[in-house]
């Protein structure tokens, strides 16, 4: 029975990847946005190029995992194709897991393009490759679950983009993407601890360079797992309520 549920989740993810993710606009948005942001930062501070890789990779995960994820369910609700998933003999958890998986896979692939790009163009070296990849997966899980939550919460696609950006853009500037959290003004630093991107950047930094800026990596992993679980189950809860309205 569980194998049916997991298999169903994978089929949903694969369908989403084919239908929504592997499309030129989505791929270009996932790649172009972090590149443009990074270039803007480099123009301001060319000497910071070596510290850029962790933030760049984390930002790539954030935007790749949420760009389609935040609108997929709201779009499918509008076209009534989401009803088709709800009619299938799968639990709500498995349906949403399938949705989250699509974002994870896409986020993971785009992050690895940035990882290779960083190695080639920025001379980035990796301290622990396997743990780095696991961190990328964990980051993609958090942000994909965030995208799913946004998508089940809102009723219109425009609202999904507004709500997703309400969190995504402040995160870019508050979570140590361009500037380590420890070198930010002290009154801003507590805000950084609220957002999961801070922990993702810090973990990626640790597995690239061997040093961390914000928090012990083990605690960072626990925080990201907790975030993923909370965001995912909030999505399940909201969807259950929506189904009864």
């Amino acid at each position, binding site marked *: 029975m569980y194998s049916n549920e997991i298999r169903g989740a994978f089929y949903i993810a694969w369908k989403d990847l084919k239908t929504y993710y592997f499309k030129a606009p989505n791929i270009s948005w996932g790649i172009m946005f972090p590149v443009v942001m990074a270039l803007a930062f480099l123009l301001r501070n060319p000497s910071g190029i070596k510290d850029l890789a962790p933030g760049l990779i984390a930002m790539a995960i954030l935007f790749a995992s949420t760009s389609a994820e935040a609108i997929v369910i709201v779009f499918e609700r509008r076209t009534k194709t989401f009803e088709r998933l709800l*009619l299938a003999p799968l639990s709500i958890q498995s349906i949403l897991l399938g949705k989250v998986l699509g974002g994870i896979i896409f986020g993971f692939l785009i992050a690895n393009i940035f990882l290779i790009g960083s190695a080639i163009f920025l001379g980035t070296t990796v301290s622990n490759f396997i743990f780095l990849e696991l961190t990328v997966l964990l980051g993609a899980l958090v942000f994909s679950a965030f995208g799913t939550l946004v998508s089940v919460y809102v009723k219109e696609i425009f609202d999904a983009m507004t709500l997703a950006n309400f969190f995504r853009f402040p995160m870019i500037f508050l979570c140590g993407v361009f500037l380590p959290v420890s070198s930010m003004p002290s009154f801003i630093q507590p805000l950084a601890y609220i957002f999961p991107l801070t922990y993702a950047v810090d973990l990626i930094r640790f597995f690239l360079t061997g040093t961390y800026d914000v928090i012990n990596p083990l605690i960072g992993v626990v925080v990201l797992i907790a975030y993923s679980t909370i965001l995912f189950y909030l999505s399940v809860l909201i969807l259950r309520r929506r189904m009864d309205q």
Partner: protein
Amino acid sequence: MKTYELNQSVAFSSEKPVKMHYDKEKNIVEVKNLTKYYGKLLAVDKINFSVKKGDIFGFLGPNGAGKTSTIKILVGLLKPSSGTAIIDGKDIVKQIVEIKKTVGVVTEDSNLYDELSVADNLRFAGQLYGVPKPEREERINELLKRFDFEDKKDVKFSNLSRGMKRKVVICTALMHNPKILFLDEPTTGLDVLSVRILHTMIKDLNKMGVTIFLTTHYIEEAEHLCNTIAIIVNGKIKTVDTPKNLMLQTKSKNLEEAFIEITGLREEIMLVEKGGMIKNVQ
């Protein structure tokens, strides 16, 4: 309020709760005191009815009568506020995932994936229902052949005509060999030829042993296809009987007349026909 004598084991008065004698061998759907509230709004009011195995069962009612809410509860898209239904021996409250394996649903909208081809849409449906791969591919080819659109196999769903889309949607619902097929307004907006094709398809499926649960606003469609008709008004079942008996009981020439009589729409229709709904503003 009138109560009509029924050929089911109970006469359906909307005023009192009813007791039914269920026959698990005979019936594929048994609805028991099913109730649905949306906040304070009562959409479905303690309804009871059963659907015989192999029947073409028409579920009719005016707009807002509770048809869609009832169907959504039966197929697992909504939870009942109270009461339950047994489908193929399983309880919709406790075993909805199991029930979904034996039920096919064709919703009012042609809600398949525009970007995917006909075959990919059918394949995805088979995957969701856990149909094993070899059987899945065989089933796709079988359905394409049986319903005569093998040439459309690789065509994107978005490029099909409206009638063809409905055919594909029905085939999608058949991928897992359901025992009962719920059809919600299957012919809305289709041309005469597409309607005829779908009617033939529905009859053929029924001959193959699939029980059909049909909702439609086209009463003549129900008269043409259904063996049994249930009429729901304001969330309450008014009657369940054969089209012939409904016409006899109401002394009507056709099912539409009987429907108007049973639903109490006669006065409103007369008002419309007299032009009473349009006020003279001069």
